[in-house]
């Protein structure tokens, strides 16, 4: 994904504080306005590789059924397919989760919640786009309320196509995600911070009721 050419002048260096213009003056004091910074990998390479291996084998998925794809997550987590075998677990709170599954189409209203959840997750964090509708809109390409390309709003590490993707496809997707994490290719959280302005501009173009802080710590 080559985004640098689309990025209209990254002026992060000049930026000290987020504006949080969507909030009222009273609320602005309640929220953090620090600009997110990318995290550094461990300085020793073998430590980083070790941690990547650990991360790959302990994937905590945020239990957030954003769309119809959530219906295939139930068989995935239960006895027929049992993703627990591979260290995939559901966590009910974004603070503790490391994988966000965007299950199918996301309407604009849900996208706002997806962004909030994603920003509250602690890095390294990974995003799986599930279903064709996250890739290019799929069946809802002309719907006025669903976004078409998910990776314009949050960085996506892996897409699983299909409508619906079967649980086997999801398992294969998790395996592929593990491979990518082990290889150190999943740096979505850092990409998000680096291209912060581009992502925010895209998000604000779609979400018209922006009554939340610019970055949800």
């Amino acid at each position: 994904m080559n985004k640098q050419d689309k990025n209209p002048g990254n002026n992060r260096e000049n930026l000290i504080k987020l504006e949080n213009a969507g909030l009222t003056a009273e609320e602005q004091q309640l929220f953090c306005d620090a600009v997110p910074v990318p995290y550094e990998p461990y300085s020793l390479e073998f430590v980083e590789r070790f941690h990547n291996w650990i991360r790959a084998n302990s994937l905590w998925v945020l239990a957030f059924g954003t769309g119809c794809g959530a219906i295939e997550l139930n068989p995935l987590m239960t006895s027929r397919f049992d993703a627990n075998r591979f260290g995939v677990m559901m966590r009910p709170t974004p603070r503790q989760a490391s994988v966000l599954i965007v299950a199918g189409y996301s309407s604009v209203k849900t996208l706002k919640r997806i962004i909030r959840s994603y920003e509250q997750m602690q890095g390294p964090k990974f995003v799986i786009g599930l279903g064709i509708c996250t890739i290019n809109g799929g069946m809802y390409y002309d719907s006025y309320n669903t976004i078409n390309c998910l990776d314009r709003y949050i960085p996506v590490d892996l897409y699983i196509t299909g409508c619906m993707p079967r649980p086997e496809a999801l398992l294969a997707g998790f395996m592929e995600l593990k491979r990518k994490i082990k290889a150190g290719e999943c740096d979505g959280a850092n990409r998000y911070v680096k291209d912060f302005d581009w992502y925010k501009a895209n998000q604000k173009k779609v979400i018209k009721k922006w009554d939340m802080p610019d970055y949800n710590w």
Partner: protein
Amino acid sequence: MNWALSIFYYIVTVLVVLVYGLLLYAFIAKTMARVQGRIGIPIYQPFLDIIQTYGRRTAVTHGYMFDLGPVFRLTGGLGTLAFIPVIYGSEIFGNFHFAGDLLLVMYFIFFGQLGMALGAGESGHPYAPMGIARGLAQMTAFEVPFALAVIAVFMQYETASITEIVAAQQGSIYNWTLFTNPFAVLAAMFAFLGMSMYPPFDLVTAPNEIPIGPPTEYHSAYLSLLQTNRAIFAGAKLVLFMNLFFGGATNLPIMVLKTWAIYMIPVLIGVAFPRFKVENSIRFFLGVPTLVGIIAVLYMQYWGTV
């Protein structure tokens, strides 16, 4: 004994109990998975989880108390373990036992929860105080039968030293408190159901009601501390129950076997039961278990034979 050596032995004990607690946790998770028809997590998964949470590269704090919460919690776990002789007669696993250690241990069991309450309260998430209120209410309730059981044990052995209690139970299986004072054991096991946070008493982390309660906002290294504590604390609690009621252990395999067997009781009840509401839970603990506890004390008072 040299104090430096004793601290070294304590650290060894903590590590052993930590590893054992994590393995036990994975084993229990696998057992529950088998009941549900699944294979379940690999046996080494809890270790990976701890390192994974520890290895998160970002963290957000909500204030000093928030930072201190997991520390308090871990202190509670370590403190509990510090005064329980894990293996009877062993120099390495003997820990800092002294004449009144049982009283101190009972204090430490609840210390961690209170500290956690302070920390989670500052996280600002509405589910956290809700979980704390539930947890503290339930804790107050199950403390009654547990305290009564421990009082009965005091009266039976006329000592507050865990080592002496274990010593009194040696020799034959019929010397265990389980057989000499069955009412106290029954009351204590009821309390243990509440302590171990499996259904029907998993109110604090009830996933469908207040997902996952107090630690909602805890993440990264904070969560790693909490996970460590969970393993140590579970191990310490099990060892305490084993010492008080099931004759203690003279070597490691016996300890593993007995604690595992004790732990299976709440687990097997847990997989087959729905969850109580908090008022039902309190009502439950103040009912039959408390009555059994009182009977245990009366039994010791009037018919007790030591």
